């Protein structure tokens, strides 16, 4: 690998090229019927892997499984228990 002078990295935010989702052993599943749109999962995600989509005045949350490491913070913090962690199986 060629190293740039001074070790300068010009491609900002390029860690997205590495999918850390492979580290996961449990996967969060969001039940949109129970979701109260508080955004706790989004704010507390250390991997910024909760995707928020807004349609009208309804927000839906989904998980970007490319980066989710399965820590379970979202499931633990969800005030309405709308997120469950299920085991990743082949």
């Amino acid at each position, binding site marked *: *690998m060629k*190293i*740039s002078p001074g*070790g300068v*990295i010009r*491609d*900002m*935010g*390029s*860690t*997205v*090229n*590495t*999918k*850390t989702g492979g*580290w*996961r052993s449990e996967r969060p599943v969001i039940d949109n019927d129970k979701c*109260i*749109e*508080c*955004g*706790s999962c989004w*704010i*507390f995600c*250390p*991997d*910024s*892997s909760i995707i*928020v989509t807004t349609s009208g*005045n309804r*927000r839906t949350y989904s998980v*970007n499984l*490319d*980066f989710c*490491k*399965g*820590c*379970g*913070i979202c*499931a*633990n*913090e969800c*005030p*309405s228990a709308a997120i469950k*962690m299920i085991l990743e199986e082949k």
Partner: protein
Amino acid sequence: MEIAADIPSYVRCRQKCETSLIANRCWKFSQTVKEVSDKELFASGHRACAGCGGTLAIRYALKALGPNTICTNATGCMEVVSSPYPEISWKVPWIHQAFENSAASASGVESALKALGRKKGVNVVAFGGDGGTFDIGLQSLSGAMERGHDLTYICYDNEAYMNTGVQRSGSTPYGAMTTTSPPGKLSFGEDRQKKDMPHIIAAHGVPYVATASVALPLDYMAKVKKAAAIEGPAYVQVYSPCPVGWGSDPAKSIEIGRLAVDTGMIVLYEIENGVSKVSYRPPEKIPVREFLKTQKRFRHLTDDKIAEIQGFVDERWDKTFR
């Protein structure tokens, strides 16, 4: 503490959520932050462990600071996980240098910007872990604070040298197990109290010093915003749970951060121009045992030791919340 009533997008959840009526359980308790940026300036794909509190500290800080920010970073977890060459997580200009000179580099950046007349509107922020702040980086931090550079220093405090394998630092609390303070026949773990870093920095006469926790993101973001807006040096210390070093469940990182505040293990306050103000008052005091039992680093503690720690906490609690 009341929940912010005027954040429009939150109205819906407040109507439905019963638990959020208890302010400390809800992350939206701050009155000063009305809007949280959707923009992620700290990209996904960083190599932090699952449930890392430190990455949250950076993510929130960058959300509060915005893209017009130049960061310097001491060696530590957050440097290692965010810059696996040739990739980088940061979407703002970022410099990594040696362990001890995060603050020195930031003062250089700030001086250069001033000399070029381009400082206006640019936040210069130095990040450091507790090792790079409390121990190794203390001299350069002290220098930067004393010289009065217009920069913000953010210390993400995970209470030991986590990156190198959990060695004790000046920040390690009393009784905690680390690889260099192991409990055994002759030892009960760390035998020194946590260094009172915010007050050491405040003694430099800096205009703004604050402590925060990643479990209360809006409070933290408000403090970072305030620190960046203030002319002159500012120091923010943010409590960042580390599941690997603390031996806790990754899912409980935020819960532990909240418990630390509610039990009185850490106190959230601001010192503005020498005037100290408590910024968060726990609704009720939880016994410190509830906090200690969530982490393996405290599992060797006997009832006597827990009572001793409770004693320290009570003393601090009475002093702070009287």
